């Protein structure tokens, strides 16, 4: 049964290599044939895990760690793998509308897209399964190599530039991660996650390694203030690629960070470092949400929303710290964070697809000229609305579950300030969605440019399905996989209180959107201008690079002196 772990990697890799060598017009066939198999394998692994008493383990080549490399599937891997498989299937269905070779011969865009999609999938599965820090490094590189070309498939200058910025910054992150890996090997003589967890002590080597690795991973995940590459890359890519990048790729390095902090070195960071992480996360939530209000293009708004959501999933680090034992605990905060990650994956994939369809039917995505979209592309508009709703978190959704868990963790550890950040984030999320809705409901300014083809049904269905998936994630019986607190299961998600908890952020969001949002030619508030200046500065390379080193130094300082 544990050989499934190998197959979950071998199948997409094999599919990609086969597609590469056969090529031709029907490259997508290989991808489409691989999808159901991969999905079935992911589900089978989750099923096997629910029956097993501990993580599934596979020793590659029969060589056991420390010499060999192990694959491990625990509950984190299982749910991430299943959600990834579902999202990839949805994205593939959507991409059937955009990435089929129109000519009888092989064409560039489909060839690259489908093979890279499969490669990306195998890279993610490897990230989720790997039990070895260096294999994780290779997995992260696989992820970058398959993600970067997706950014610039259309070959325009700005997307090429975005891809280059992404690649260079991601490489910088990888190198920092690699240094840390080497130092940890030097300290313990192994790279295996479990063996390292048993061996690592807080000493200079390991603390420096931990801070460098974390900083590198944050750069790859684009946590504030290290996001210089993300908005342009995610907003410029073709819709299907944006969906992959935003929903899945950033989750890869996030997942490695979680592995590192919770599984490799739970006792290393100490309280101050977790507060630093959560402070960055909080800054990301507030800053990126406010900037989302200032965007004039829909895809950029969605990209900044991704930045804010990355903040959300990193907020759990302070909440998961147990003061008594001085360790990171795998409790409700971690579950909340992961739940947020998978809810965002499904909702954001749908949202980018919807934005892409809106672009396709209007010929532009300027927010101020969205009027009439509800008539021009009703289903796309509805999908966008529902995706936004899923991010705010109605009682049945995964985001709601996540929020409840995180709030409870904040309550338990007495860190009310992070709970406050969560609520502010909810308000701001509502605000930028209300801004879009307000523009979309306005009457049509001018007739849509003719000549835009109707959106394929399959694309609409795929986007809607992913969004609905996010909306019902809170209802899934998670007990077999997640260490959910028992009280959660008895809690009815459809009570009046639950409904109110969704409604009030929206109500406050209206005035916020009115005051801070970008509307017409109105003179913006000075705060808004400051924000835009700060954003421009942080997207400059020297600032971002210096911030990266500064984050590493700050983390190291917190780890040294904050214990």
């Amino acid at each position, binding site marked *: 049964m544990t050989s499934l772990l190998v197959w979950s990697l071998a199948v997409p890799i094999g599919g990609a290599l086969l597609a590469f060598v056969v090529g031709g017009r029907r490259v997508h066939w290989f991808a489409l044939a691989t999808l159901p198999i991969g999905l079935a394998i992911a589900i089978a692994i989750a099923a096997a895990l629910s029956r097993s008493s501990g993580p599934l383990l596979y020793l590659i080549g029969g060589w056991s760690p420390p010499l060999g490399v192990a694959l491990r599937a625990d509950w984190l891997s299982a749910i991430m793998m299943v959600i990834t498989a579902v999202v990839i299937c949805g994205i593939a269905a959507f991409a059937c509308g955009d990435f089929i070779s129109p000519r009888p011969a092989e064409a560039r865009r489909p060839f690259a897209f489908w093979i890279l999609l499969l490669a990306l999938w195998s890279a993610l599965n490897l990230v989720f399964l790997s039990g070895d820090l*260096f294999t994780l490094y290779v997995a992260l590189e696989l992820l*970058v190599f398959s993600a970067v070309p997706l950014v610039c498939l259309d070959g325009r200058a700005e997307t090429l530039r975005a891809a280059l910025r992404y690649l260079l910054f991601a490489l910088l992150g990888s190198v920092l991660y690699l240094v840390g890996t080497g130092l940890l090997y030097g300290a313990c003589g192994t790279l295996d996650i479990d063996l390292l967890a048993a061996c690592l002590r807080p000493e200079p080597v390991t603390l420096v390694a931990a801070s460098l690795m974390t900083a590198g991973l944050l750069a790859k995940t684009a946590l504030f203030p290290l996001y210089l590459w993300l908005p342009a890359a995610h907003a410029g890519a073709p819709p299907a690629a944006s969906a992959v990048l935003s929903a899945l790729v950033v989750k890869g390095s996030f997942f490695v960070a979680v592995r590192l902090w919770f599984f490799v070195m739970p006792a290393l960071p100490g309280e101050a470092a977790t507060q630093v992480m959560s402070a960055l996360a909080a800054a990301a939530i507030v800053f990126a949400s406010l900037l989302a209000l200032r965007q004039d293009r829909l895809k950029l708004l969605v990209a900044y929303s991704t930045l804010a959501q990355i903040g959300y999933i990193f907020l759990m680090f302070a909440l998961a710290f147990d003061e008594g034992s001085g360790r990171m605990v795998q409790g409700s905060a971690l579950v909340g964070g992961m739940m947020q990650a998978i809810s965002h994956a499904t909702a954001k994939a749908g949202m980018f697809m919807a934005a892409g369809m809106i672009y396709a039917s209007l010929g532009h995505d300027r927010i101020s000229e969205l009027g009439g979209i509800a008539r021009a592309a009703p289903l796309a508009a509805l999908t966008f609305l529902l995706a936004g709703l899923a991010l705010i978190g109605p009682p049945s959704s995964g985001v709601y579950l996540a929020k409840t868990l995180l709030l409870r963790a904040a309550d338990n550890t007495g860190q009310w300030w992070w709970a406050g950040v969560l609520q502010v984030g909810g308000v701001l999320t509502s605000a930028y969605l209300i801004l879009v809705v307000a523009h979309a409901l306005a009457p049509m300014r001018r007739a849509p440019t003719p000549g835009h083809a109707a959106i394929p049904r399959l694309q609409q269905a795929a986007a809607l399905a992913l969004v609905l998936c996010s909306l019902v994630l809170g209802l899934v019986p998670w007990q077999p996989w997640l260490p959910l607190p028992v009280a959660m299961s008895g809690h009815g998600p459809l009570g009046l209180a639950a409904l109110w908890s969704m409604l009030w952020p929206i109500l406050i969001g209206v005035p916020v959107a009115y005051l801070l949002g970008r509307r017409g030619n109105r003179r913006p508030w000075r705060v808004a201008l400051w924000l835009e200046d700060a954003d421009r500065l942080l997207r400059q390379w020297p600032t971002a690079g210096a911030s990266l080193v500064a984050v590493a130094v700050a983390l190291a300082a917190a780890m040294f002196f904050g214990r």
Partner: protein
Amino acid sequence: MNAATLAGLSGAALIGLGLYGVLTHPHPLRKLLSFNVLGSGVFLMFGIIARKGAAAGLAADPVPQALVITGIVIAFSATALAVALLLRLFAVDRSATLRPDATIERNDRSDA
């Protein structure tokens, strides 16, 4: 001071140098070069760890050395991809700048 410690210190210094180049050089090609210097500094760190692990009749621990070989190949592929991107960007845009607003400014200029 033995060869391994010396190499380790050189590695640290090279990491600092490479990092400085990556941060401050505006041209992507120079960033890439600095990145390679930075990478080789990291590999040297692995080298010292391997050398300190000399045991069982082997002059160095083979595991970090093997990791370095893998790392060098990956660093090369990354460089190749980045160079291809850069050359393409230059061919399309006649400019290699990484500034985020470059394209927008250019469009504004040509509009005006």
